């Protein structure tokens, strides 16, 4: 069984590698000595200038494709190195694809990096929200809905009050309010949590859609403005080549997200709160017998989590300079959930997963202007495709918190 799985996985890696050689290396796009150029200056912001990296597209793609095949063979021959083989395979495949897409033109690599990070921000915030809930034993599939109410509230309050901070706070509170609904129905009325989450999503979509048409769009110039937090440039660090402008010249929500990752990672594994949260999510009865209040812990975590996913909603409006739009979360809440599972319920794992999914989105954005033969719609689909493959194929056996989704009823 295990052997068959290994053979199938390695076999498909080799076949895909061969396909990459033929399609990306030997096609007409990369023929005739076409060159692919990758730029490392981002909007000229970096003070140290790096030259473009220019490679002959055909030979480079063939080489990368051959590397893919090699990693497939490695996967077959050395099962112990499987993780490295898969990672190397994916990296080379993506590089081959990018080389092919860029052939005859130039791609701003730093721009791609930036798009990746910006796309990852709501995913990270969403999966941190899911993490706080699920580690305490409550399944939250309403992240999508929390994004929507957060985005809607922040756009309206920000526009009407004229204060971005008021908008930010309103967005977070809106997310927390939806979280509180989830917590009450799950803890007090013992409603099935997945069904409950789906219902809350539908509710949030309906409510924000209604408000959008009747309230926000009734006077968009005063009630739904395109506002944005200004970028904050961190002196010194922002001048670093490549990573400087991408990591150290962003707006406040970006930095808040980074801080939250660190805070949750440390909090979960090194503080009393984290120990108790994990205990409640694993074995609530045991937690109860050492005097921990199980339901209070769950309420607190779910509501705090709501604040974080609300911030994810704020990112979509005030963080990105966009007015609120109907259904603007566009499934990101669900991808965040996938990032949580793919990241094995740990903050750093979720961050890696969010970056991977963000990269898939970044590619689809960066390649659109390059006129690749791949249809735009297909490119837009790649993040979701990546999600499915990641969750179904690569995750393998992960262990969710043991008491997840089971309502706690005191004896």
């Amino acid at each position: 069984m295990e052997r068959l799985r290994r053979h199938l996985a390695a076999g498909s890696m080799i076949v895909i590698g061969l396909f990459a050689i033929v399609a990306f290396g030997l096609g007409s796009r990369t023929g005739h000595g076409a060159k692919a150029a990758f730029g490392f200056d981002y909007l000229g912001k970096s003070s140290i200038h790096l030259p473009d990296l220019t490679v002959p597209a055909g030979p480079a793609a063939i080489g990368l494709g051959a590397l893919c095949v090699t990693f497939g063979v490695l996967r077959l021959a050395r099962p112990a190195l499987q993780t490295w083989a898969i990672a190397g395979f994916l990296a080379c495949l993506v590089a081959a694809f990018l080389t092919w897409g860029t052939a005859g033109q130039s791609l701003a690599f730093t721009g791609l990096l930036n798009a990746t990070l910006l796309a990852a921000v709501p995913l990270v915030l969403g999966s941190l929200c899911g993490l706080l809930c699920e580690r305490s034993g409550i399944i939250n599939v309403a992240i999508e809905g929390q994004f929507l109410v957060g985005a809607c509230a922040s756009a309206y309050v920000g526009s009407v009050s004229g204060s971005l901070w008021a908008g930010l706070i309103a967005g977070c509170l809106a997310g927390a309010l939806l979280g509180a609904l989830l917590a009450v129905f799950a803890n007090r009325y013992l409603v099935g949590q997945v069904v409950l989450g789906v219902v809350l999503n539908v509710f949030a979509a309906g409510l924000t859609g209604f408000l959008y048409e009747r309230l926000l769009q009734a006077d968009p110039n005063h009630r739904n403005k395109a506002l944005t937090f200004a970028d904050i440039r961190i002196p010194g660090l922002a001048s670093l080549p490549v990573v400087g402008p991408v990591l150290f010249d962003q707006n406040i929500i970006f930095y808040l997200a980074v801080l939250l990752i660190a805070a949750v990672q440390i909090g979960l594994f090194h503080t009393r709160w984290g120990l108790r949260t994990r205990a409640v999510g694993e074995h609530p009865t045991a937690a109860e017998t050492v005097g921990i209040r199980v339901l209070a812990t769950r309420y607190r975590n779910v509501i705090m989590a709501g604040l974080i996913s609300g911030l994810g909603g704020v990112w979509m409006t005030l963080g990105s300079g966009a007015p609120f739009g109907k259904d603007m979360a566009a499934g990101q809440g669900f991808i965040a959930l996938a990032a949580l599972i793919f990241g094995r319920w740990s903050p750093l794992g979720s961050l890696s997963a969010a970056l991977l999914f963000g990269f898939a989105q970044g590619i689809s954005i960066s390649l659109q202007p390059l006129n690749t033969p791949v249809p735009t719609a297909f490119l837009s689909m790649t993040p979701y495709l990546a999600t499915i493959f990641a969750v179904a194929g690569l995750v393998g056996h992960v262990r969710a918190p043991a008491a997840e989704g089971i309502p706690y009823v005191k004896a």
Partner: protein
Amino acid sequence: MTKGTGGGSLELRGITKRFGSLVANDGIDLEVRPGEIHCLLGENGAGKSTLMNILYGLYEPDEGQLLIDDEPLVVRGPRDAIAAGIGMVHQHFMLIPVFTVLENIMLGEERTRRGGLLDHARARRDVLDISRKYGLEVDPDAVVGGLPVGVQQRVEIVKALIRNARVLILDEPTAVLTPQETEELFTVMRALREAGHSIVFITHKLKEVKAIADRITVIRRGAVVGTADPSDSEAELAALMVGRDVRLTVDKPPAAAGAEPVFEVRNLTVLDESGRAVLDDVSFDIRPGEILGVAGVQGNGQTELAEAILGLRTATGTITLDGARLSGRTPRQVLGGGVGFIPEDRGHDALVESASVAENLVLDLYRDAPFGRHGSIDVKAVQDNAEQRVAEFDIRTTSVHAAVGTLSGGNQQKVVVAREMSRPLRLLVAAQPTRGVDVGAMAFIHERIVAERALGRPILIISTELDEIFALADRIAVMFRGKIVGIVPPETSRERIGLLMAGAHE
């Protein structure tokens, strides 16, 4: 109050707890003196655990009062109980399997450094202090889920002591232990008593009561029926516990020797989901009219053995009964081939609790005559059968139409036994046949099993109760980590079998 040093005295006055119409505790009085091991003796379902859960704040009593050190105490939750110096080791451990020993012990009582970070170093020091003081050896960094139950129990005790428990409640602590581990536990209990702790030891095992108790309180059907002295005989204790004289031994004629084995198991292996052998190359045989008892600490492959024989689990190896191959067959074929099966978890695997006694008595027979007729069920035949079985097996129920779930544990088990023995058997597999059953029903079930033996059936008994194995078995097979580590005659000493249960090889 001198926390952590002196022992606590504990008094319960008129504790009453009702669940609906059921009175689980009926005006219970109990007094535990400082520095004594007080045994609470009672059958399964007598209300011992309910009482202790009240004491620990998990249930609220309907009436009555608790006093600790002669001060009235109101316990609204475990937090209050812990603060009052009461510690509890639950029958089902309250440990988090994915946490380390240290994390489990410090949970709820966390030591922290500046900035709110957990102070692992200090917690480790505290744990090792207690561990040294009472001889409770634990590795603070081991993950609890991978530890043997005996060690997990030690962790539970450390957990209570680190919270300065002066009164320690041990709920059926020996149920999961080998005889040697039980001895070790008793040593620890004596050390705790020396240090002035009071211990409430809940059990239904008479031998252990006599070995360790200073004083004994017996409860039956939710009420205190008397106190006893450890020097009283086992028969006296049993009579007090059950309410009438009971026979503790099973009359069993000597085994008929010489016949060829009719039930053979060869190289039976079962893998779990992760590919680990939970049943590892097990071989044995049983002659007609012979009872093979499988002893072992719970979770050493006994469940898998029974399920593999019944065809409930995929297994490699061969099983033959009367020369015909049994392995690779579906459970329905196996049962149809004359195998009677009493599963270890009757509520889960043997009975449909919401269905009536009559329906449960034909759960595996309804398809064929006389109960099944052209795809419909002959209600009259089912009812006649039920009335006959209820009389024959002395099943106490208000009606054959009552839901099985409303019967007592002992009577539920009699329903299972009656069903499995109501058709001609060629093999009986009984796993934990008397778990959670009162002494009266236990004697009855044992008699029925011996009666099957007299009819010349091969019988496989799987039990974690050594007393049961000694009472019934003609040969004893001991299981450890999925293997049979030895097959020994029933005259073998308890100690020897205890060593085998802990993995010592023949």
